[in-house]
């Protein structure tokens, strides 16, 4: 993997990227191990809850209600956050969000920032924008640090480095932290990160974070995490800048009673995240002196406008659907070409791109429904996938290869004569392309022209030498 950010505009389409990922046995073992462990933990702590289904229903309805009244809750959040001494900014898209954040960091007088893990900052490729402006971002979440030092990309929304095992992490730390004697126990690695980052926590004056929840009623912001790096970034710097999608708002403080139960159990199989932090604006005696919130649209209003796609915005980014997805478990996250991988990525990414990019993602699913079952806010991902597939076909119009091929097939199937002729022609045309495997079976790995799309991502078996009809006719004549 290169160090450049995952960008749906330039990433290879899912089927191509997945094919490469499938060849990486180590990656697949690492992903499988991690998702197995989280799934087992999740199942255990969810089974503890007799009211789990009632919580899911409440979670779904809170999110739905928020989306229906999003303008009101955002304005309410803004008013309360401002009253408490915070400064609220609005950004229509990623470029505007980057511009605001870079400007705020410069105004804080820092040329470095400490960062809390945030998929939203990944979404807008903030780190490269900061670097281009001469500002050094330090990732402080252990997984994000592994990604940053390894010039890698996140592959899971909750555990971004789950595709790396301890030996691989050790090699990265040895090289990047200059620690040739570093041990390989997980404790040794965590200790190295602690020492490496503590100096930054105590020194750097500006922090950048995402947000898990924005509380409209109080203007408060909530971040959940486990390592304490979040608390460090929220508490120690003089300036704190949080960037959040407009979908992150929740109506009232009390609604956290539902989300605090659904999120940790679904995400990491914990009964509660080791740390939850809630703060409102600035407090003279505690925490940063300047606090900014950047509310970002970046195509979320497009999704809101689509009645069937809208439920995508209910997502609380727990990652449970990724762990449950048989496709994700085989390919890992990078194949999705976006920071949002797995089932949620398959529906969110194309919509965030306003359906201009990542059009193969709605097809990156077996529609088995496992994602729907585990989703704590009951997002019907298979339903949205099918809706998006329809959109893709419609958007590409009748002239796209697939629609054209289907039309041709329809025409051929309508007449027996045409069908037989097509079969004969096919056998003749394929002859030079067929390669025999060790069992003597014929395979086609490459088709010319527009048909190449099919063989780019899968092998095609050669047509049988004798059709069923021919065999049946022969059988009739020879009486065998």
């Amino acid at each position, binding site marked *: 993997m290169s160090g450049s950010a995952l960008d749906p505009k330039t990433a290879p389409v899912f089927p191509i990227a997945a094919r490469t990922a499938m060849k990486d046995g180590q990656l697949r073992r690492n992903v499988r*191990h991690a998702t197995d*462990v989280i799934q087992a933990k999740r199942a255990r702590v969810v089974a503890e809850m007799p009211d789990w289904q*009632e919580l899911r*229903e*409440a979670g779904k309805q809170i999110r739905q*209600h928020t*989306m*229906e*009244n999003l*303008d*009101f*809750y*955002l304005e309410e959040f803004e008013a309360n956050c401002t009253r*408490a001494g915070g400064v609220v900014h609005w950004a*229509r898209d990623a*470029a*505007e969000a*980057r*511009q*605001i954040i870079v400007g705020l960091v410069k105004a804080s007088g820092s040329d470095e920032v400490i960062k809390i893990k945030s998929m939203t900052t990944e979404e807008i490729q903030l780190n490269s924008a900061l670097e281009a402006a001469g500002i050094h971002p330090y990732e402080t*979440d*252990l*997984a994000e640090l592994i990604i940053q030092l390894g010039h890698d990309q996140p592959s899971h929304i909750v*555990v971004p480095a789950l595709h790396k095992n*301890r030996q691989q992490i050790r090699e990265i730390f040895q090289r990047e932290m200059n620690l040739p004697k570093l041990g390989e126990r*997980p404790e040794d690695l*965590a200790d190295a990160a*602690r020492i490496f980052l*503590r100096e930054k926590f105590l020194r750097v004056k500006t922090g950048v974070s995402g947000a898990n929840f924005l509380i409209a*009623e*109080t203007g*408060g912001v909530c971040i959940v995490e*486990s*390592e*304490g790096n979040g*608390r460090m970034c*929220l*508490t*120690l710097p003089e300036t704190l800048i949080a960037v959040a999608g407009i979908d992150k708002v929740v109506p009232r*403080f009390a609604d*956290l*009673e*539902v989300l*605090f*139960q659904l999120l940790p159990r679904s995400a990491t199989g*914990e*009964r*509660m*995240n*080791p*740390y*939850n*932090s*809630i*703060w409102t604006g600035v*407090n003279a*005696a505690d925490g940063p002196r300047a606090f900014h919130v950047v*509310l970002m*649209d970046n195509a979320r*209003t497009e999704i809101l406008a689509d009645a069937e796609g809208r439920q995508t915005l209910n997502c609380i980014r727990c990652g449970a659907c990724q762990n449950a997805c048989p496709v994700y478990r085989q390919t890992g996250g990078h194949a999705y070409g976006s920071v949002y991988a797995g089932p949620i990525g398959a529906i969110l990414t194309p919509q965030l791109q306003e359906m201009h990019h990542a059009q193969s993602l709605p097809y990156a699913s077996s529609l088995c429904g496992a994602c729907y079952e585990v989703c704590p806010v009951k997002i019907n991902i298979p339903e949205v996938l099918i809706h998006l597939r329809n959109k893709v076909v419609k958007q590409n119009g009748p002239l796209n290869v697939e629609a054209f091929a289907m039309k041709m097939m329809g025409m051929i199937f309508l007449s027996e004569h045409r069908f037989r002729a097509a079969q004969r022609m096919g056998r003749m045309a394929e002859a030079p392309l067929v390669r025999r495997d060790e069992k003597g079976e014929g395979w086609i790995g490459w088709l010319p022209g527009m048909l190449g799309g099919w063989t780019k991502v899968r092998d095609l078996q050669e047509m049988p030498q004798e059709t069923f009809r021919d065999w049946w006719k022969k059988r009739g004549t020879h009486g065998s």
Partner: protein
Amino acid sequence: MGVDTGAAPLGSARAEILQRIRAATGGVSNTEVARAGWTRLPREYRRAATREREAVLELLEDRLRDYDANVVRTGRDRVSAIVAKMLSERGKTRMVVPPGIPNEWLPVVVEFVVDEGLSAAELDRFDGVMTGSTMAIAQTGTVILQSVPGQGRRAVTLVPDYQLCVVCEEDVVETVPEAMARLQETAELPTTFFSGPSATADIEMTRIKGVHGPRYLDVVLVGSGI
């Protein structure tokens, strides 16, 4: 990627986003509509305790231990003696405490320094921190701290490697909804929930204690009786 300069003037972003939302949802939402809709949301999950009082306290102890915390129960008049014992077992001699911590909790054999706005680097040089707490949630093994006397600034309970926390039995609730209801009045204070010491599972999903926050946690659960 450079800083984009081609973006539209910033002032109009707010109006434009709100306008897009209203176009998407079919109109302006107001206080009345939002409040009425919120009140109708279904809340059939558990919102109250189902256990006897003693069972709630035992559950808290159990869940805290499950998260690698060390828990001791004691009576009101025994706090400083227990604190002295725990600190000596851990070899801690110089502790930071927030202003407003009850004096009777502090044993005389240990040096306690009151935080009067110490720098992060200064906090880093203490053996540990000792505080009270606002509340604890039994079901999840969670302790809640707020920026008030006796609990202090968030940085104070974060930078030192060891934390000793006193929880009073009357502040223990069983469920998350009970805790949020009690916090409603002080919802705007800086608030921290912690469940066990700092932990990560980022390396092969192995739970490792302590990355950046305190690695060691002791809880003294103080009875309401003697």
